[in-house]
């Protein structure tokens, strides 16, 4: 057994109500590590041969909650949620911060594999090796805050009654879905702690389709043994000391970006990306700080950055709304993207999507899309059930978000996410509305535009990514330097990549060695292991299905909006040059060893030992 791992995984078949422990060979864990990498491997092995037919929202999909060897050790713990994505029909490694991964490892498990579909609403309660499927009828339909409150109380009650001599029980860690997940809304999240979410991928909908409301876990053991504890301590200290010097993320988190990414880099979505610039000082970080931040720093297990703040509206119409910062993505998507420029309205909408279990990014994206269609007269008041989502009308957007979560009226259509909604509306209205859909591979694009050229993202970031619009795992060149392949490490070893800024690149691999005892270099990682994971993700993304497949010639591209010139701001008239994009895409294909059609080459697949993927992809090569 490799150090740093608990050594076993929990597999829960909800249809049969069967629970068993499974183990993976050391050799497999050495190659795929955990989290995103291991998820890709499990999904490929179990579903790969019939990938196109697997309905992401059907009982045959597999929902994964995976830690990695560095979870709980590298500062800033997360858990990776994955499965066949109901957004991209591929695989997304979606991570969420919190103590869940730590509790799970302390309970003796590296991950939970959920299959089947519960007959009636269920939740999973794990207390070390005692695992039970429990009735969740009483929390089904409940929002995030109610769910957390009721399950915390119930599980602590169970622990107290079963172990009366233990003393006071700390709360178990809980991952849950809100009403949106229950209703299989494709923009639903798997959430933790009211405001944390694994958003990209839409795994809240998968969890809902399985009738699984939550997983609560309490582990009373230690984190697994490591190869060299002295080194782990030393490296932890090295990371923390560097991070403690970091003013930006510690003081403001990403909460200062709602203003600066608009005003300075001009790459923030404004009114569904019709613009990417604003200079609204009402949206300055000082306004958030002085008006709504009630807790200056909020973090998760082992985190030196604690980049979050807690925000609450204390007076006025939106009194009582609570969320975190909101972080930049939600500031942008539930702010300027909807024509909203006050902290209070932003906190109100972020709090609402938290409560409903919706993804702030994907929901902001689809709300903005709907509002632009309304602006253009394509969707009318009648189409929108009497709603008039005008830019800046927070209450109209709130009502629309609620309709999405409950799939009511127009909400049922928008609940399919921007891409699928665009296809349907296009058919309904006989208008090309895909030009207003700012997404890639079914995933709404993160709030970092590429037109100004001043953000970290580039013209191939989203178009070539195996995770579509995801702003964290972006495609970049050189391939083995800082892009997706490195992100695959963070998301496979499973820790927060916000704790790598300013940290020497080699350190994460030293950390990996100190924990696991295994030597790994960036070169080895990028040239073999990460590349293998990338190729498998690409393979499954291209296979897609069952509702549609991606054609790289059409879909490895930026949304049309990114080819229209910026209409305002310091980078006015700048846009993405299609020819340069095509050139860079070619280079990326070459670096990733994909053919001119974007399909991974036989040679590289065989070299990586992915003969079965090669065979499966043969049909796409003509």
């Amino acid at each position: 057994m490799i150090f740093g791992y608990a050594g076993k995984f929990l597999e829960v078949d909800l249809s049969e109500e069967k629970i068993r422990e499974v183990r993976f060979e050391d050799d497999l864990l050495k190659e795929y590590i955990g989290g995103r990498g291991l998820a890709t491997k499990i999904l490929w092995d179990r579903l790969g041969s019939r990938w196109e037919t697997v309905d992401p929202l059907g009982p045959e999909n597999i929902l994964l909650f995976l830690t990695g060897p560095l979870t709980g050790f590298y500062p800033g713990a997360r858990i990776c949620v994955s499965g066949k994505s109901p957004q991209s029909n591929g695989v997304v490694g979606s991570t969420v911060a919190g103590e869940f991964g730590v509790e799970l490892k302390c309970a003796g498990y590296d991950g939970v594999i959920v299959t089947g579909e519960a007959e009636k609403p269920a939740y999973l309660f794990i207390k070390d090796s005692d695992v039970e499927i429990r009735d969740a009828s009483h929390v089904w339909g409940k929002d995030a805050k109610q769910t957390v409150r009721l399950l915390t109380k119930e599980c602590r009650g169970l622990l107290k009654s079963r172990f009366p001599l233990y003393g006071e029980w700390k709360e178990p860690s809980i991952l849950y879905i809100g009403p949106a997940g229950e209703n299989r809304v494709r923009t639903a999240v798997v959430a933790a702690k009211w405001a944390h979410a694994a958003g990209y991928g839409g795994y809240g909908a998968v969890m809902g389709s399985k009738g699984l409301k939550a997983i609560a876990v309490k582990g009373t053991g230690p984190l697994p043994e490591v190869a060299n504890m002295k080194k782990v301590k030393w490296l932890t200290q090295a990371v923390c000391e560097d991070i403690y010097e970091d003013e930006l993320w510690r003081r403001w988190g990403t909460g200062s970006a709602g203003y600066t990414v608009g005003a300075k880099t001009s790459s923030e979505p404004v009114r569904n990306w019709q613009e990417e610039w604003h200079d609204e000082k009402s949206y300055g970080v000082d306004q958030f700080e002085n008006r709504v931040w009630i807790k200056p720093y909020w973090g998760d297990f082992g985190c030196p950055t604690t980049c979050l703040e807690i925000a609450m509206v204390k007076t006025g119409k939106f009194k009582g709304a609570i969320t975190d910062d909101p972080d930049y993505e939600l500031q942008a998507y539930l702010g300027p993207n909807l024509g909203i420029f006050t902290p209070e309205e932003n906190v109100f909408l972020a709090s609402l999507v938290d409560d409903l279990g919706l993804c702030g990014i994907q929901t902001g994206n689809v709300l903005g899309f709907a509002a632009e269609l309304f602006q253009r007269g394509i969707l009318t008041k009648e189409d929108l059930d009497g709603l008039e989502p005008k830019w800046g009308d927070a209450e109209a957007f709130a009502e629309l978000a609620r309709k999405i979560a409950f799939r009511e009226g127009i909400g049922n259509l928008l609940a399919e996410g921007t891409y699928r909604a665009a296809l349907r509306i296009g058919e309904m209205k006989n208008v090309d509305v895909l030009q207003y859909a700012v997404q890639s591979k079914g995933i709404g694009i993160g709030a970092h535009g590429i037109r100004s050229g001043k953000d970290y993202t580039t013209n191939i970031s989203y178009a070539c990514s195996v995770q579509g619009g995801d702003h964290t795992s972006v495609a970049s060149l050189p391939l083995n330097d800082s892009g997706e392949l490195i992100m695959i490490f963070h998301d496979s070893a499973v820790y927060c990549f916000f704790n790598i800024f300013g940290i020497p690149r080699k350190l994460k691999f030293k950390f990996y060695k100190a924990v696991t005892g295994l030597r790994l270099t960036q070169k080895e990682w990028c040239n073999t292991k990460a590349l293998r994971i990338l190729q498998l993700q690409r393979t499954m993304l291209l296979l897609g299905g069952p509702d549609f497949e991606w054609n790289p010639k059409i879909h490895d591209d930026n949304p049309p909006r990114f080819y229209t010139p910026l209409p305002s701001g310091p980078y006015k008239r700048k846009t993405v040059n299609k020819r340069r994009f095509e050139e860079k895409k070619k280079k990326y294909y070459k670096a990733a060893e994909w053919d001119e059609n974007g399909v991974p080459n036989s040679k590289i697949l065989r070299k990586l030992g992915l003969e079965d993927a090669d065979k499966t992809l043969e049909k796409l090569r003509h």
Partner: protein
Amino acid sequence: MIYTELQGFYTKKEIALTTEEEPVWIARDLSRCSGCRKCEIACSLFHENRIWPEASRIRVFMLVPGVEFPHFCAQCKEYPCVKSCPTEALSISRKTNAVLVDEEKCVACGNCIDACPGKVPHMHPTKNYILICDLCGGDPECVKVCREGGWNVLETVPRKDFTYSLYARTPEEITRDLAVKLYGESGEEFL
């Protein structure tokens, strides 16, 4: 007077208090807690040489998100836990005034938990004895990591003649107070 009353409970293993080493108390500003749980990590590493949140003598509760706080011994002047121990497993350190657990003598009866007004002690998750903060012998690890990170929830101050028992309160009681302080009246609904 209190000293006389508690005399029998002082640990016999330690040498008498030296004048250079003033006993300390960990002052706590709970609403500043970020929830990073570095105190749990530091405590369990020091005592168990493992990262082991449930075996930490200081535990961060989060019964309501945003309302995280460390829960640990307040060293009440009256030491009801020590008095309640039927096997003399608990004693008071002469050097630090912390409660010391004799792991051999402890029978894990839980009397001390009941006696503690804050229900602070809890069982070791795998061994048969109770866990109570021992102040790491006078230089607590939790305080160091908390201050290093600049959160300053925990601070060592000289132990004075103060009613520290006021700080021995249950997780629910503390949560209620902090939740209301943070979230106002909605704080009451979350518990």
